[in-house]
């Protein structure tokens, strides 16, 4: 679970998460608030980036720690701002047990739950990946997803920021890795947080760079 300045929600997220599993790794990505302290109070495995690198870099740190130090066979990523329901981890556990290498958590789209700009951006990302990489992957920006160790080595990303979600999708599409999806609930707390239009444009630009191989 990567997080940056999440003191507002982290405590309650970790409490809910601990009710489901104790195998939790939190990566504080250079927060300037009490995020790291809250995480350390609640769980054992808290990695702290000295400076803010971005979501992609934090996810990579977490993966390497989980796979190399904890000998994990798979990881499930979750956002730390209480957008995801830890109870739904069971859906991922079940898919992993069935042998899925990559599992994307796909949100139930509805106008009341998701802001229109995000809904359109979300659909645009999937459409672009379909056109450029010939694979339809729904809800690419969703941060709730799972990778096995084998899949991690195939999709290992270089993105440091929010574009990581897109890079994972592109690599899954390019490598023809079989994936499955699970339907998840999403709660929006802070619309201002997360990816903004500029981030979105940056992601689209990167998408064309990956298509061109530059």
């Amino acid at each position, binding site marked *: 679970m990567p997080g940056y300045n999440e003191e507002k929600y982290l405590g309650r997220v970790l409490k809910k998460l601990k009710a489901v599993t104790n195998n939790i790794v939190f*990566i504080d990505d*250079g927060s300037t608030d009490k995020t790291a302290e809250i995480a350390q109070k609640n769980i*054992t*495995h*808290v*990695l*702290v*980036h*000295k*400076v803010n*690198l971005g979501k992609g*870099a934090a996810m*990579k*740190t977490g993966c*390497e*720690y989980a796979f*190399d*130090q904890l000998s994990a066979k798979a990881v499930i990523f979750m956002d730390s701002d209480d957008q995801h329901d830890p109870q739904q981890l069971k859906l991922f556990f079940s898919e992993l047990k069935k042998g899925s290498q990559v599992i994307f958590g796909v949100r139930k789209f509805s106008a009341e739950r998701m802001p229109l700009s995000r809904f359109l951006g979300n659909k645009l990302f999937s459409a672009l990946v379909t056109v450029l990489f010939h694979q339809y992957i729904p809800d690419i920006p969703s941060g709730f997803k799972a990778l096995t160790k084998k899949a991690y080595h195939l999709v290992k990303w270089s993105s*440091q920021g929010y574009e990581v979600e897109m890079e994972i999708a592109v690599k899954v599409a390019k490598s023809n890795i079989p994936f499955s999806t699970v339907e998840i609930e999403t709660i929006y707390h802070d619309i201002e947080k997360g990816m903004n239009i500029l981030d979105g444009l940056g992601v689209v630009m990167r998408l064309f760079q990956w298509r061109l191989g530059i």
Partner: protein
Amino acid sequence: MIPLQFFSVLFGLFMIYMIRIHQKKGHFDDAETRTWIIIWLGFIVLALFPQILEPVVQQLRFSRVFDALIVISFMILAVINFINRVSIKKLEKKLEKTVRESAIKKLTKQTE
């Protein structure tokens, strides 16, 4: 001297002043300082006496010296931009590696 030449000379002198400041701060060594000063002195000379480039301009079939200068400037900017991009990418990767490794090392020590 036309206004464009006047401003070009002022700009060249300003850049030489900037180079001196960065040399004093230790950002440039002597060799690098010398190279940049030569480049900007060359720029000032060309701004004052653009006819120096006349034979080259005719050879390359540019209609005016100014056009040749614009094309050359764009080429130089493109090269500098590319070098900067590569350097920034390298630095980003080094920073990322250092920060990530240090985070893992610290936690591994704590949990041992």
